[in-house]
């Protein structure tokens, strides 16, 4: 089994709901963003258009971040999801340097969402799983996935632009979409074998 995601760029409206859902689900400290939304412009004035491309962790099948981690804090699970064991992370940031997708972030400081105020009860509860001085990234909501649910970003996408499933199963919706629409992975040429594919871009 190898979990992967297909992002239909024709459907994505760049609303950022996936980013908000991700923050809510994972309770990330302010400034930490697992699901980045890159905006870019196509065409020329007066017919220029603003477009968006969501950039979660690509959960590469051949992840460079896993190779460079000296303490084996980065783990690739049997289902293909790449996670970080915070208790093993020494904060060397070699994985951030190695990641070609800017998917990882270092917790420089545990920032609250309300500046100059104490943590909210939600923050207090959620921040327990994060440690200052360690690296974090998108985990494909592994806890939800283990319960048979979809990642929060997929569940919340109002345009149905994100589809999650097993890339190893040729009958799965993700495999079918990739085959039918010629799914393209980001920087596939560098051999990382990303598990996030884009279609209709």
């Amino acid at each position, binding site marked *: 089994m190898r979990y992967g995601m297909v992002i239909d760029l024709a459907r994505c409206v760049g609303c950022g709901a996936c980013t908000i859902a991700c923050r809510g689900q994972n309770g990330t400290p302010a400034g930490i963003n697992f699901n980045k939304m*890159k*905006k*870019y*412009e*196509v065409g020329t004035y007066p017919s220029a258009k603003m477009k968006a*491309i969501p*950039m979660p962790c690509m959960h590469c099948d051949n992840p*460079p971040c896993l*190779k*460079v*981690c*000296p*303490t*084996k*804090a980065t783990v690739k699970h049997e289902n293909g999801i790449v996670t970080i064991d915070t208790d*093993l*992370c*020494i*904060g*060397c*940031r*070699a994985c*951030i*340097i*190695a*990641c*070609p*997708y*800017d998917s990882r*972030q*270092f*917790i*420089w*400081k545990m920032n609250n969402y309300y500046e100059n105020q104490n943590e909210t009860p939600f923050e207090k509860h959620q921040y327990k799983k994060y*440690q*200052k*001085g*360690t*690296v974090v990234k998108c985990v494909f909501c592994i806890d939800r996935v283990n319960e048979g649910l979809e990642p929060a970003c997929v569940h919340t996408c109002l345009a149905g632009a994100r589809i999650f499933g097993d890339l190893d199963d040729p009958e799965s919706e993700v495999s079918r979409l990739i085959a039918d629409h010629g799914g393209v992975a*980001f*920087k596939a*040429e*560098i051999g*990382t074998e990303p598990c996030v594919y884009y279609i209709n871009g």
Partner: protein
Amino acid sequence: MHWINWIILGIAVVLTGAGGLAILYQLFNGLNRTGLNDRYVWGLNIQGFFTLSSYAAGILTIISAWILMGLPDPGGIFAPAGTLAFGFLISSQILLGSDLGRPLRALYILKGRNFISPLTWDFVTLMILTLCSFLLMFNLVPQNVFFIKVWALVTLLTSLLCIVVHTIFFIPKVEAGYNSHPFSSLDIFSGSIWSGAAVMVLMSTGLDLQKTFLGFLLVFSIIVFASSAGAFIASKLGRTEHKNIKFLVINGVIILGLVAENLVLKEGLFAGPIIAVLVLFAVFIEKYDLVTEYQGKPSLPLPYSMFEKITPYKPSIIELGSLVASFSLSVVIFYAVYIFKLYILPFVLSWF
């Protein structure tokens, strides 16, 4: 010991003491006050680490190659040069340790045993080189041709491995192609051996031997210049931004200086040491271009990175303090060992 040396030691002690506070602050508080950000995750500390380890590897490469060729220790400078390499290695490791988000977990590297990680190999090679330089520093290698050759071989291979390891940190981030990778192995290797030759020039100050090492320095300068000038021309022809212009200019000045020293100054008083210090500075600048400036480039191709905000990197006072302390600590270790061997060791030995 000459009074100039005492002054240098005094200054180094003060700088180590003042900057050492910054290192201690970072060691016990993690990366609290730095100029680093999500774009520049490695900065002055890593630049200093690469520089110091490059100096040490360069010194040990030259010494071990010299021994393997069967040449005798010229003027007894191997032990002091080994001491300086030891100082550089200790300082580089302290600097690297203080740059970790969780410095007190550094030994997890031993537990992790991920031997495909460049950082693990960095750790291993630095440990071996520290041991090798320690043996050299106190003449602890058994004075037997076999053992000396084994020491030299282990040191040479480990130094080369240490340098090569530094070339693979950025590999996954770049696409295949000439000069797309900031850490070209030849550049890194020649930079390291270049700085090693510069240290040898410093060590042989006042000896006739300095001329030999100045000759080496000229040869290595030309190799480094040719390599960086080739990259500059290639980037101009390819219309890409060239990152290493400062390094190229300093390198040119060094070559001119070396030629002038040889042709014009002849018995120039401090020309050799000044050029050597300039070489060490050039290697430090080279690491800035490789480590820090490279990170300023967006990882994603256009148009996806067109609106990416790049926060500039300005090292904090803590980072500057750590860097100064690590360089001055190398000097303190060098003199401390020298004083120990000159004044304390004979006294201790006289008791036995």
